[in-house]
């Protein structure tokens, strides 16, 4: 498929980013290091070129991200000259909350959702850019591009502001905020085609390589460091894998693949018959789980 249709998506995303920045008092871009954040950040750089994007970039670090992600994050910030805030829920970290000890649901709640809310409150951000796409998950298909949050950062799916034409109602009171999703209308494949077309660097974990993995419940996890508690009988082995989505390494499964380049990756995707969130454990905690997380303030 010819990728010139991307132009219309780009034009729309840039419009959204400019609109949100113009209406914000204290905007922040939530950077999660993955491919969607990479595309969103690049679009933000273009939206104001040759000016630097007029907002802060923030990463919520759970302490369990892949090492390669952290390296990539720091390199990117340096290359672009970004002010990067890195926030970790210290309370949770001190209490020893890990995906292995507290279960994925509780851990995500404390180290991601709570951490995000703490960071937003500390800095008083009122417009928050996120890289979520509507095609990722069913409850996201209903989320607005400009999504209103009350002063407790809660989302009310039954009371969303209608979005007509290119008009976004961003009226809000003290403490209330707007989450903005410039990639709402993009699909996973659109993002990759864009990354290819613009030659954007991405975390190498997206490409297939021999990696040390642990097989558990039919899924492959990267043995990223020795914090990974092996169960009796488990032994890390080398497998050629890549990741379709990047999160916390103990919660993100890889897939066996030979896609070593972006072309190979896109070809594989065009042929693949599994959606990307199949590798995300937190979506499967309970039925409708993403919607519940979002109501509580998760991205």
């Amino acid at each position, binding site marked *: 498929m010819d990728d010139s249709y991307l132009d219309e998506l780009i034009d729309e995303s840039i419009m959204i980013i400019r609109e949100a920045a113009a209406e914000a008092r204290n905007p922040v871009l939530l950077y999660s290091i993955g491919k969607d954040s990479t595309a969103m950040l690049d679009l933000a750089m273009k939206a104001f070129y040759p000016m630097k994007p007029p907002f802060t970039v923030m990463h919520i670090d759970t302490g369990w991200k892949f090492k390669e992600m952290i390296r990539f994050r720091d390199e990117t910030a340096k290359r672009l000259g970004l002010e990067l805030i890195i926030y970790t829920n210290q309370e949770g970290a001190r209490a020893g909350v890990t995906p292995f000890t507290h279960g994925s649901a509780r851990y995500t709640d404390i180290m991601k959702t709570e951490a995000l809310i703490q960071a937003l409150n500390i800095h008083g951000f009122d417009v928050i850019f996120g890289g979520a796409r509507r095609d990722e998950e069913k409850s996201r*298909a209903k989320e607005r591009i400009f999504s209103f949050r009350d002063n407790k950062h809660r989302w009310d799916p039954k009371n969303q502001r209608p979005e*007509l034409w290119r008009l976004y109602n961003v009226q809000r009171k003290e403490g209330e905020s707007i989450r903005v999703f410039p990639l709402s209308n993009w699909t996973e494949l659109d993002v990759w085609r864009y990354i290819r077309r613009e030659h954007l660097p991405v975390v190498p974990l997206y490409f297939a390589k021999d990696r040390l993995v642990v097989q558990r419940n039919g899924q492959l996890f990267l043995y990223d460091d020795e914090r990974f508690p092996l169960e009796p009988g488990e032994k890390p082995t080398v497998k050629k894998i890549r990741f379709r989505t990047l999160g916390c390494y103990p919660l993100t499964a890889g897939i066996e693949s030979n896609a070593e380049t972006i072309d190979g990756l896109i070809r594989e995707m065009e042929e693949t018959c*599994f959606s990307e969130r199949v590798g995300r454990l937190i979506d499967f905690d309970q039925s409708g789980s993403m919607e519940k997380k979002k109501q509580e303030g998760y991205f």
Partner: protein
Amino acid sequence: MIEGTKPSILRFMTCGSVDDGKSTLIGHLLYLTGNVFEDQYQTLLSESKRIGHAGDRVDYSLLMDGLIAEREQGITIDVAYKYFNLKDRKCIVADTPGHTEYTRNMATAASNCTAAVILIDARLGVVEQTRRHTLICSLCGIQHILFAVNKMDLADWSISRFMEIQSLCKQIIDDLKPFDLRPEWQAVPVSALWGDNIVSSSENMRWYTGVTIAQWLTTIPAYSAGADSGFRFSVQYIIKPGIGKERWQKEALDEFIPEKNGNYRSYAGRILSGKIKKGDTVLILPSKQESKVVNILKEKKQLESADEGMSVSLVLSDKIDVSRGTSIIRQGDFQECSDQFKAWIVWMQKEPLIAGRMYLFQSIYGIALAEITRIRNRIDLFTFLHLEAERFEVNDIGEVEMALNRVVPFDPYRKNKYSGGFLLIDRKTNATAGCGMVIHALRRAENVHWQHFSVDKKARAQLKNQKPVLLWFTGLSGSGKSTIADLLEKKLYSMGKHTMVLDGDNVRHGLCKDLGFTEQDRTENIRRVGEVAKLMVDAGLIVLACFISPYKADREMVRSLFDPGEFVEVYVRAPLKVCEQRDPKGLYKKARKGEIPNFTGINAPYEEPDKPEIVVDTLELTPEKCVNEILVKSGL
């Protein structure tokens, strides 16, 4: 790629009543076109067994209905977006709920779509919702409608049933004509459950030879802001990089910024319609300053020209006062600016809309304070009749008049949906209370007061539901002024308008019986007529004045008595020779014989108007056609 053939994304919507099977249709379409992943399909199979509403069959609607509550109740309660590819076209479908109380979602989806698939249950046929959905979609600018007559499997795949429904669909489309809405439409018989006519032609309905849903979606045009209204641009953001510290910024500044003193600024926005080129002279609205485009940037590239839909930033030659929401158009184009409109409103919140209330108005050109000055009517969404209304409840649609606290640029919605659409925001709750579509500006924008409780010209005119105006017919004797005015008055009378004709016959015998036909007397005659006409316009009447009025200066004197737009000069044109042949009152004959001194055309001059608002040529047009021409051009 050929210029102007940018491959674009098809944005369409689906609408129908609760059980018409919209979600099933789209879910099935996604599945049949290879847009459902294997793991999603597995989830679908297990959920179909557990919470499906399709008996033993796969419940494809589960692919669409996202929220927990919806899945439990088997209904769709908000707009859901789905993305898929049909051949080489990227499609975005907005799945909109059908219950009566969710009109707002439909308007929301329609505002950003070009096409709509409206579902009809073959067993129930065209219902109230069908008419309602068709009207809302069309009013909001949907240009292509496909009526999908679903559940044909439960209607014995009956051709006669389909034909019956198809003719009712045609009736709905015909009923839209009084709104001046003419969407292109088709009807297709389908079974969303079994997949008939979704992608491939139905084996069960060989009698149907038209398009399938998928074929229709791949052949309709993808995108248009509306009919061409010229270059439209609203400034979203002002880019002022100062002196960049990063390496990439220094490189950028070296590349295309001549002045490195930090004065660079560009105006960022998305082109709403039309095209702009480097070197074009532009007009800034509403300030009416002029400038020139010296550079166009898109992302990191410089362009020679840019088209509709592109997010760009423009560098102008002059340091002028441009702020967010400023309109930039091309010099020579015209865009209206006003602080008073007539508009369609779709009301979206429980708290009703009431005349006299204030709301925040938000258009692509920024925010203003708005007062609804008058509710003109409410549309009955089933009969399409205009009803009297004092308020709009949630989901009501109707016409209002409104006044803003500042002048804003705009276009009528029919010309450009992005510069003609607006939101009304509740100032207490900040909720989007409703949306609107500008029909046209109301006249005398400059000097209408915010509060107007006294009975004035406007109030009188409102009572009569008309725009008071003086139509001044000028032309030679025998050119057809009185004939046309007479016909026009009959026509206006039949439209329920309040009119009055002034002509030589009814003023020369009384008001002006002391006057003759010298130049001086003619001038005085016209002056008196002008003053009388002014009183009548103040009374809210549509006045038709038929006077030869041969002198330009006299006509201009009358014009000066009126507010802009109130005096409409209609030049009834016919060659002297023709008038003389017609000679309905035998006056030319008398004049030729020397029996009438100072007869215009024979022994007194006629000064043709320079810029009459309307010209009708009675040699070429019948009186009926002239009347139509006048009605169209005057906007009566």
